[in-house]
């Protein structure tokens, strides 16, 4: 298990260009947002919508990489030594760490260029963590599906967007509450639902992945 996770990291860092291109992609997205809204003060709703839209694009691309770019030889090798359940768990955990890193980077650049209206930092980071896990759990499986098709990246976004709307909606609502500095009780429903969706997505990925892996 630990070796598998480490293997993910090593193979990812070997392809440094992908990692850097993801970060650059995110930074350019934030910068485009900044140029298009200028320096005006954004309302909480607009800020959280822009923030999550930028993250959505970056995170979908990040997770899409988790299967689409795997070399065929490496896949066959992995297939022969470990069970599919282990692989999906490793991919989800790796994707979770990657997403969490990307979201924090995104937040940093947003606060640099588009001001930082977040009042309740701890709740906001909790949301970032939960949403990162949700994205990773929901999209890793879809990435595996999409990697089998002819036009993988397009299919990936078509399949992914409807499935993660729930996570995104909840995250945007909690972020708005964070900006308005409401107490935690105001967002408890959303937090519960976000956790619920995460568990659901993770459980179904775990159950369904072996069927895809077999081919």
């Amino acid at each position: 298990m630990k070796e598998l996770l480490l293997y993910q990291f090593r193979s990812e860092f070997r392809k440094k260009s992908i990692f850097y291109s993801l970060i650059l992609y995110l930074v350019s997205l934030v910068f485009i947002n900044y140029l298009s809204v200028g320096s005006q003060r954004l309302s909480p709703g607009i800020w959280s919508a822009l923030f999550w839209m930028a993250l959505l694009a970056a995170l979908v691309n990040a997770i899409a990489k988790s299967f689409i770019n795997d070399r065929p030889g490496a896949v066959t090798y992995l297939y022969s030594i470990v069970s599919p359940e282990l692989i999906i768990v490793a991919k989800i955990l790796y994707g979770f760490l990657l997403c969490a890193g990307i979201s924090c980077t995104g937040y940093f650049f947003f606060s640099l260029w588009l001001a930082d209206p977040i009042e309740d930092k701890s709740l906001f980071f909790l949301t970032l963590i939960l949403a990162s896990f949700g994205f990773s759990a929901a999209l890793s499986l879809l990435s595996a599906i999409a990697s089998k098709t002819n036009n993988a990246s397009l299919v990936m976004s078509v399949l992914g967007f409807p499935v993660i709307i729930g996570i995104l909606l909840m995250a945007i609502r909690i972020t708005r509450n964070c900006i308005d500095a409401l107490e935690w009780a105001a967002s408890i429903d959303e937090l519960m639902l976000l956790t619920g969706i995460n568990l659901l997505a993770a459980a179904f990925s775990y159950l369904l992945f072996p069927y895809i892996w077999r081919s």
Partner: protein
Amino acid sequence: MVAMKSWWKVLSILLLVYTVIGGFLLEVPRLAIINESIRGLYFHVPMWFTMILLFVLSVLFAVRYLSRHDLVYDRISASFAQAGLVFGILGILTGMVWANYTWGTPWHGDPKQNGSAITALIYLAYFVLRGSLDNQEQRARLSSVYTIFAFAAMIPLIFVIPRMSSSMHPGSGGNPGFNMYDLDSSMRKVFYPAVTGWILLGIWISSILIRIRNAEEKIVDLEYEKNS
């Protein structure tokens, strides 16, 4: 023999004829704002019941495919999904007609409207996925996995989130639903037959789609035999 086997199709037609005639002509409760648009109930609500039933059947057959690996189940599952999608789109359209008169705009951004649009997107994506895979086995397996996963992801979207947010849709957010409007039970006389009729029609359409898919499969097989 034919009449015995297809009695439910005849029943479906009779019920739907009754729904259209009775739905437009029978007495309905007089209510402010809603007025005659309350008749949409006979068409809009059964569409959703049918859609959900067809999607559930589609998921069940997808599960069955994954456990049995027989392509027949995949064709059944895809046919139910296709018919369900048609009913979903019709449900959205009938809802928009009603909303245009009652809420003043066809798309009000109500949580239920958005949820149903997302559902339609999910199933359109399902067919995009099927279209972009050439290998039959692979298409069956991957689309089965996707439809199960998407259905699971859809449950919070259409059953939980709309209940959490305020909505103007009848029957939610403190708005009276069907039971409150229909004080003298006069609408039930049309509503229950309407639901039965539409559901039967949905299953009928699906069964035809299944037969078309099976026939296409047979044609491919025959051509393959002829050429080899």
